[in-house]
């Protein structure tokens, strides 16, 4: 049984460009890209820097710490895949390194979710043998 969700679908299907990110998740590493031209750090994985369109970059490991930018508690599932998970909390997290990231907020009280508060990454290994899902929890 997955630890953080009752459902397991849908599972991401990596592309050659995003594969390093998902490979990192298996080792519980949250990988970001850092542009070699302008030093911009970005998420999600892609070929070109969204600040300057340069295509040289290095992978950098994020600390896994961030702040909760915003959230909502889904009292009604917004897709059938999440029907068994209500109420679940969707989150936009600002990572310490700068980028924002879409995720779930888990192990949190839906009636008391602190925007602006610290969060840290947790890993769900149960959705797929090929990758782990990075979720966040109040730190």
């Amino acid at each position: 049984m997955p630890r953080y969700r009752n459902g397991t679908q849908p599972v991401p299907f990596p592309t050659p460009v995003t594969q390093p990110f998902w490979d990192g998740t298996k080792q519980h590493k949250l990988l970001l890209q850092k542009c070699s031209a302008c030093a911009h750090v970005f998420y999600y994985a892609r070929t070109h820097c969204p600040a300057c369109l340069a295509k040289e970059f290095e992978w950098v490991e994020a600390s896994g710490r961030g702040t909760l930018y915003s959230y909502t508690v889904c009292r009604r599932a917004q897709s059938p895949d999440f029907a068994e998970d209500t109420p679940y909390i969707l989150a936009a997290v600002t990572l310490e390194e700068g980028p924002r990231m879409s995720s779930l907020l888990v192990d949190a009280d839906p009636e008391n979710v602190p925007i602006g508060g610290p969060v840290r990454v947790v890993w769900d290994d149960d959705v797929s043998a090929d990758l782990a899902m990075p979720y966040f929890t109040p730190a």
Partner: protein
Amino acid sequence: MAGLRGEAAIVGSAEWAPKRKPDKLWMGLEAYAELARMALEDAGLKASDVDGVITGTNLMEARMLVPSAIAEYLGIRANFFDVVDLGGATGAAMAWRAAAAIEAGMCETVVCLVQTQMSPPDPRVEQAAVARDWGGGIWGSPQAEFEIPFGHVQGTYGYAMIANRYRYEFGLKEEQLAKIAVEQRFNAQQHPKAVFRGQPITLDDVMNSPMICDPLKLLEIVMPCFGGAALVITSKEKARQSKNRPAWIIGAGEHLTHRSVTYEPDFTHSPIKPSADRAFAMSGLKRSEIDLASLYDCYTITVLLTIEDAGFCDKGEGPRFVDEHNMTYLGDWPMNTHGGQLSFGQSGLAGGMSHVTEAYLQIAGRAEGRQLAKCDTAFVNGNGGIMSEQVSLILRGD
């Protein structure tokens, strides 16, 4: 500043009453043909007057090369043709594109066409999933990989996250959002085509409706419907001969930054500001000179943010603005007099078009029981995705 000269005008419209279920089987081309016929009749123009067409992307009979399918079926010999793919902002975007094409001398009379798919869905495609994922659930799409597996789908969650962030930064009472829904429902009682005509609601009704995604409740969320709409936009020469009072397109603006709301640069400072600022600067009008605000309203929070970011009040003052104004057609600051999509109904792209249509009808003096005593100017905002595509228009009557 450079921009539209205000030498093209809306002179006619057609709008099907939004329905919860399609009441007739229409193929896409059939629906476009009928909408075009109705709008031209409304404008007092002939089919042979049309030399430009702008449509939405959702034509079930042609997954690509949509314009040629329409030109051939409708028998239009077009000098200008365009497909607009800007979600809820599509209707507003069509209007200024038509005006620009006319002013540039590309064509003289444009029909703008939008519809919900009215016919039985293609059984080979899982329509529900396509709709839920907004077409982004395909391999290689960042949305499919970094949003959908995390449950970030459809629109409600995103607007709810925006509302929560707004409340965190500026303070917001749920009753203030609810008031928007109540006043728009009041307006809809005077629109014969509104899906919620005959069903007025109170503040308590909104507050007691089921919570869907905190803090948004059922009655603050738009109702998906089936329908279609069309506008006729023509040149100065033809508009001056129109049987209807023309609504001149005197200002327009656009702005777009993101698809997933997570990557919106700032949840509480939306891309509406640059769009609206450009439209106002182009028009030469001041905010205080606007008689009708026709603001895209997929959710109540959308309206609140639009009031602020379009410059009708300062940032953070939206909740107080809502408290202090009566936004009905009888009020001191009329807004979404057709009921908005929340109460008129959201027929896909025709939902966004309804804000343009209502602004036209008010300026033309054709808004029936909800007609404003004075409506010479209107501000329209179209919004696509999750505060993504923004298109602003300013219309003026002579």
